[in-house]
């Protein structure tokens, strides 16, 4: 009986210590570190700051704009290559992102922020009924006349309006917002996320393709994408073609200063060097859609790794001892830009719920 009492007492002591830590954490604001400075990391950092203004938020990454995966992307809002993410989440996060982007296009600072409305055509070799049709603006099927005039080889087409982000302007804008609210930025490489938990209470893991190693998640596999950027300011519409006969969708996206021509989608390919055959295929495919691209001035080529996760986007809190936690926010595949704001909002909810449950256990 005495032993039992000692055991009980010991347990009580351990519990007290844990509880004490929790009380301490609840008494002061948790310190938060966002790991990764692509569009996912920066939007998470900014939304966390907005929601938890008294928290110390640090942004830590080894790469920043213009060297992130996000920077190389087309910046085009459209949910695609999102693995097994459930449709309700895709709709919720992408709609929230699109609404936010559209509101930014109405700002006098739209150009500095790097967002603009863009309209255009998506053509297919067979009829489609995408979920996102309810989310974009003015979605409609093209008329027979448009099909005949614009891409006779296609069997079906849709016209709609969406948003394009100039990521190289948007990320710096997010960072400056972050710094204005006293966010700290550290350039550093991290080999183990858990190491950060010694210094921070909450780590938000926005490492994209890096999560394959850092979160030990073998489900994160690259889908390689190559693009060419050209100067073609007479092109005001986007145009995409996805044919069953095609290796991969071809697209022409008019950005602020350059037009993005793409693309490829090579699963499991980690190569970030430019492939000449891909380049030729992209060029031929795009020229077929818009012949005047022949006169476009070549600016640069780029290849990047979409951080695809077959089971879908992972937004999940992983709890550690001492009330610490890692909130994962990765695996957005080809839809990082499309989902970022909504996912950052989800991360904020995760943190809020986790902090609340920590406090309520006291």
């Amino acid at each position, binding site marked *: 009986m005495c032993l039992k009492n000692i055991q009980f007492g010991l347990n009580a002591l351990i519990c007290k210590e844990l509880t004490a830590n929790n009380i301490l954490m609840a008494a002061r604001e948790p310190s938060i570190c966002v790991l990764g400075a692509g569009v996912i990391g920066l939007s998470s950092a900014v939304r966390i700051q907005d929601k938890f203004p008294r928290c110390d938020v640090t942004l830590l990454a080894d790469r920043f704009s213009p060297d992130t995966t996000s920077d190389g992307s087309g910046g085009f809002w459209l949910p695609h290559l999102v693995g097994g993410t459930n449709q309700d989440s895709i709709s919720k996060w992408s709609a929230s992102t699109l609404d936010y982007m*559209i509101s930014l*296009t*109405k*700002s*006098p*600072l*739209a*150009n*500095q922020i*790097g967002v*603009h*409305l*863009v*309209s*255009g055509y998506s053509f297919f070799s067979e009829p489609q009924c995408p979920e996102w049709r309810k989310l974009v*603006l*003015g979605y*409609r099927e093209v*008329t027979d*006349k*448009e099909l005949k*005039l*614009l891409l006779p080889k296609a069997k079906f087409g849709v*016209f709609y*309006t969406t948003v394009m982000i*100039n990521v190289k302007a948007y990320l710096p804008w997010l960072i400056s917002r972050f710094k204005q609210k006293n966010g700290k930025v550290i350039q550093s490489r991290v080999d183990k996320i858990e190491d950060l938990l010694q210094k921070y209470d909450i780590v938000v893991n926005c490492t994209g393709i890096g999560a394959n190693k850092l979160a030990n998640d073998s489900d994160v596999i690259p889908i390689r994408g190559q693009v060419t950027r050209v100067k*073609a*300011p*007479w*092109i*005001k*519409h986007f145009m995409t073609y996805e044919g069953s006969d095609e290796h991969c969708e071809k697209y022409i996206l*008019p950005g*602020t*200063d350059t037009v993005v021509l793409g693309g490829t989608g090579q699963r499991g390919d980690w190569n970030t060097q430019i492939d000449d055959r891909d380049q030729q295929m992209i060029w031929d495919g795009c020229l077929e859609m*818009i*012949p*005047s691209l*022949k*006169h476009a001035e070549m600016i640069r080529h780029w290849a990047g790794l979409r951080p695809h996760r077959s089971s879908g986007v992972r937004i999940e809190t992983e709890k550690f001892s001492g009330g610490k936690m890692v909130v994962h926010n990765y695996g957005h595949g080809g839809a990082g830009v499309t989902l970022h704001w909504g996912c950052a909002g989800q991360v904020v909810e995760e943190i809020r719920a986790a902090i609340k449950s920590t406090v309520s256990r006291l």
Partner: protein
Amino acid sequence: MARICVLGAGVAGLSSAVNIQSILPEADITIIADQFNTESTSDGAAGNFGILLGRTNADICRLRCWTRDSFEWYHKICTSEDANIAGIHRTHGYQLWRTEQPPPFHGSFDYGYRILSKSELLKLPGNYKYGWELNTLMVECRRYLPWLMKRFKEKGGKVIRKQLKNIVEISGSYDVLVNCTGLGSRKLFDDKELVPIRGHTIRVKAPWIKTLFIADSDTYIYPGQDNVVLGGTRQRGEEKLDKDQRYYDDIMARCCSLVPSLKNAEVEKTWVGLRPWRPCVRLEVEMISVDGGRLPVVHNYGHGSDGVCISWGCGVDAANLVKQQLTETGSQRLVSKL
């Protein structure tokens, strides 16, 4: 060999000249003008393909032909390799109104229009009650005129820079005249029906603007290849070409209320010009008496706001009238020489 003279080197003159060359490859064609390229009224036009009935008047049948022929031509160019060199590109955007409107005239000829729903109108700027989504083109004369001129010269066309005070200066040298002098016809052909309608535009550097906007028909934002054209004004009977800053400030304010980010766009240049408006577009033959003979003049002027839009179709029509004249009078001249 027929000798043809086209008066005027704006979009009407060049379109006529190129069309005449195409159906009369043997003819000797000369363009005489005192204003070329950036000096012309056409150069200032935004070049949006769109027509409002009531603004441009002509026989509805003919207007349909001109619009249809023009669009087919521009579409062919804009889907070709030459699109950017010729200065023609596709555009998309919104035309907003305070009250319900009949369908746009050009809607049956271009890529199509769609009536906006109430929920869409709520999302768009301003409190407009009615509107269209437009899919059309823009023909920018800054590039289009030199492109037409190059084609004209490559096929042997001649060009003389000269300011004509009177038709008699040249009437003896040609078999047919094609009058594309716009407002110049007030003096040259004593046309009292022509009325200048002054317009102002601002061209700004705003490459993030890909969408066109037209509000109340007089406020517009057209995304061009090199800059965005903001407008405008419609001042009937005004002729002074001084650049009154008040008008530009007003244009900028109206456009910024549609697209606020224009506030930060760098102004490249301002422009003021005179639309050559006429109660009816004049596209017809007039026989004038010169040196005891009769000289056919094919008139092609008075296009008002829509000169660029219908220029190709009018050029086709004018060229056909020229050919007709030569066929009719050619045989007469042969007879008279015997």
